[in-house]
């Protein structure tokens, strides 16, 4: 690439300052949605990084906390299968008009609810993904006395008081991940109930019966993902559903290296890939970008590129982050202190390091006319930086990939990489990691998990600061009134809108420190 003579791009407006660089939800009103339903005793943790991956792919995700979940296992007593069905139906009706297409996706019991929802609402405007649906409780690690539970159901006092516990392998084959889950349980983290009342299993059994009766009436294309070694429910469940729904509409993916929790176990990448493919969503990454449908009009693409150029012209890398998906990757060439692939959170430390080296005087300028190919834009430009009297003017081109209004990836191609190597200096292994503030933030995050139970307002404050620091401004629709927990979290996060990530990190660290001090004093 030769960019001899920087030129003003026809599609770039140099007048665009910070106002033009503000994040915009390009295409958000036309984005497809996905309704995700968690499993029994679980939370959205059951679905691993699916939320994030779907968001990265330009889909809008919706979820809810099922009745009886989110606080303590005792809350499940008295909750019926109908309560869960009613909750997902209400949420579905609330969001189905907000997207051109709405997909359904459920994990474990959430898969049974998704199947029931698809049948009851005659869901046709979207697809259905069933992850490890437990139509039959017959996995290899289910206990020998599982067949006796109907006898105990006849005794109300027993079924309401008997606790049915979760034990190893916790649905996870990967021993590292299992150790993490075990530690979370031992710390008492509220990501999954350690036990559920027997009555709750009775309701799941009723739900299973409903699905068995109604599966044949599901009319939408369906993907069933199931692990061959699922310890809770065998492949028989997946076979049953595919057979009932019909081979023409339903297909199955069998995982060979996972147990029940398919979204967090060894095969999670395979799960994500198949789900994204099934939804027709793009997968971020240079190899697949060109094959993806950008879901942006040419005008939207031009506007997006202009906004990016505005940010880069001002050296405002924090605003670049606001334009991008959470896992956006910036690839800087060469062998120097800022070279490498900087994805997700690492982009923040890259930007800080870049500005530290050059005393805050790094920017891109002299943008040329962009060349577009689907969601890809190639923009000739010049990287300008100054350091200790030395000045760098490195010509090259920025290649940026977009999807549904969000920036997926930026690659800087320098014409003379060696010049940049000399300017930025040799790689410094000590400087490639997270910044001191990020390290403190990580430590505070770990420390927060050891805090004893605190009040809801403090928990919400912690949540809001954490999300603002790690993700940025809140996005997506405000959850409905029925989903009180998710709504409260959304509201708390939205109050931090506009707060820079560094400030949010400092706030989070200070709050955790204060809470720990309070605990010490109380002890």
């Amino acid at each position, binding site marked *: 690439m030769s960019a001899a003579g920087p030129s003003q791009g026809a599609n770039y407006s140099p007048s665009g300052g910070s106002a033009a660089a503000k994040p915009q939800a390009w295409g958000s009103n036309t984005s497809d949605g996905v309704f995700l339903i968690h499993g029994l005793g679980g939370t959205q943790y059951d679905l691993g990084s699916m939320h994030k991956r779907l968001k990265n792919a330009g889909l809008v995700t919706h979820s809810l906390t099922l009745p009886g979940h989110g606080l303590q296992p005792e809350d499940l007593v008295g909750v019926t299968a109908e309560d869960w069905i009613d909750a997902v139906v209400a949420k579905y009706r609330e969001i189905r008009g907000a997207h051109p297409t709405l997909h359904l996706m459920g994990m474990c019991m959430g898969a049974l609810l998704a199947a029931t929802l698809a049948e009851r609402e005659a869901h046709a405007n979207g697809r259905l993904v069933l992850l490890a649906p437990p139509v039959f409780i017959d996995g290899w690690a289910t206990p020998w006395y599982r067949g006796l539970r109907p006898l105990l159901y006849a005794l109300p006092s027993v079924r309401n008081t008997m606790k049915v516990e979760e034990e190893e392998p916790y649905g996870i084959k990967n*021993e590292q991940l299992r150790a993490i889950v075990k530690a979370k349980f031992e710390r008492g983290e509220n990501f999954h109930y350690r036990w559920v009342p027997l009555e709750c299993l009775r309701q799941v059994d009723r739900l299973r019966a409903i699905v068995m009766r109604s599966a044949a009436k599901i009319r939408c294309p369906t993907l069933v993902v199931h692990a061959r070694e699922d310890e809770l429910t065998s492949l028989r469940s997946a076979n049953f559903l595919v057979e009932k729904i019909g081979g023409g509409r339903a297909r199955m993916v069998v995982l060979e290296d996972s147990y029940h929790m398919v979204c967090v176990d060894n095969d999670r990448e395979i799960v994500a890939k198949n789900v994204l493919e099934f939804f027709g969503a793009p997968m971020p990454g240079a190899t697949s970008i060109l094959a993806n449908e950008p879901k942006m009009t040419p005008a939207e693409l031009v506007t997006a590129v202009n906004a990016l150029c505005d940010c880069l012209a001002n050296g405002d890398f924090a605003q670049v982050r606001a334009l991008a998906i959470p896992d956006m990757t910036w690839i800087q060439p060469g062998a120097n202190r800022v070279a490498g692939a900087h994805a997700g959170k690492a982009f923040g430390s890259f930007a800080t390091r870049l500005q530290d080296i050059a005393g805050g005087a790094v920017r891109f300028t002299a943008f040329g006319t962009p060349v577009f190919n689907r969601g890809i834009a190639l923009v000739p430009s010049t990287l300008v930086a100054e350091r200790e009297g030395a000045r760098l003017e490195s010509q090259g081109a920025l290649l940026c990939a977009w999807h549904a209004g969000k920036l997926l990836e930026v690659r800087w191609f320098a014409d003379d990489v060696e010049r940049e190597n000399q300017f930025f200096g040799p790689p410094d292994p000590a400087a490639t990691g997270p910044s001191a503030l990020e390290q403190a933030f990580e430590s505070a995050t770990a420390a927060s998990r050891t805090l004893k139970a605190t009040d809801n307002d403090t928990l919400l404050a912690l949540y809001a600061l954490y999300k603002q620091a790690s993700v940025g401004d809140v996005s997506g629709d405000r959850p409905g009134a029925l989903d009180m927990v998710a709504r409260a979290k959304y509201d708390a996060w939205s109050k931090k809108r506009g707060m820079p990530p560094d400030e949010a990190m400092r706030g989070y660290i200070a709050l955790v420190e204060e809470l720990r001090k309070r605990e010490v004093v109380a002890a």
Partner: protein
Amino acid sequence: MSNLVPIIAVAVAYLALAGVSTSLAYAPTDAWTVWLASGLTLGLIVAQFHHRWMVPLAGAAIGAAVFALILPGSGVTDAAGYAAIEVIAAAAGAFAAMWLAAPPLRLESLRELGAFIVGTFAQAVVGAALAAAWNLASGGQEGIRTFNVWAIAAFVGAVLVAPLVMTWSGFRPKRSGGLTMPQFAAGTVGCLLFLGSLYVLFSGDTQQRFGGSVGIGLTYVPVLFMSIVALTWGARGASLAAFLGALIALFNTIRDSGPFAAVDAFVGEAELEVQVYVAIVALTGLLIAALAAREHKALLTARDWRTRFEGAIDAHRMLAYEWDPVGGSFAVTGDTAAHLGVPAAKLATLADWLSHVSPSERDATATAFGMRADGALGPALTYRMMRSDGTAITLTDEAQAIRDHDGTLYRVTGIVRIGDRG
């Protein structure tokens, strides 16, 4: 008031076990073969923490007193004395057991099993001594016989019932985990064979069925099946099978059936033999289960250690290897599949490792490893490996020698830092 229901439940269970024991009385010696109720009291105490002793002791005292009152010729004084003996003996047994192992005891280790046996022995001896003293104090002439009958019946009864209580009191229903279905099926087969073989051996005229003393010799067969039960079902299943099997053996023997009744040289020989037999079978099952539990625990410890080690080197983007220059084995630890695109199993020799080194650097790397084999470890090596996807990755390989007592090279162990691709 909140303890009333559990106390009554213990008393009822005590009476039920006492009733079963009564039905197992051996007519020729006019004695109970086993005193199952003693196992209930001891088991309930040692399966709990100290502060929960009151319920089992109170329930046992009530059960013992009521049972004594039911017996013909017993009065309130006898009932009170009998209840006191039960409570004191059970408490003595519990103290002895807990002196050796901290409660609650679940029989999941050899230490707990040893403590349980000591506790059972102490309970039997203390109870027997008090009963003999009571007999003599009340004008009886059978102090020694009372001691012997009581001690043996109480010991065997406790060996059969207390493990049931101790192991099953820790039972919690699970959604998943614990005994897998294949394990349960194997244990079921073992249990059926155990109970079936006992029934075949002990029911009917053994001498006529097997001839001579063959029946006695065949009493070893159920022990084999008990070992299968213990290995698959653990202490919980072994204690259940031993209890049911003991009922079969005892019930038939007191009715002059089975191998021990067939050869009865003196009055009470068959009773003594079956008492020893059921106790030995039960303890064998518990011993095998404790050994299996110990091995399982060791495996879990090793797994945790491996998980921690692998997690640490993976977090630092490293691999570790151990190379035997003499034997040629090469063992790599770490996520080779992620870093190199090759599973560790396919890097079992140095030749396997070198085959993935970039062709242009392979000879130099092989030479460096050859020098390491001669003890010249040198500085860290930097070379590129070819990944399965065709890309290259830079490794920094730092080796150290493990030498034996006289300085001879035993192994070369290395830490490999994963660098950048390309």
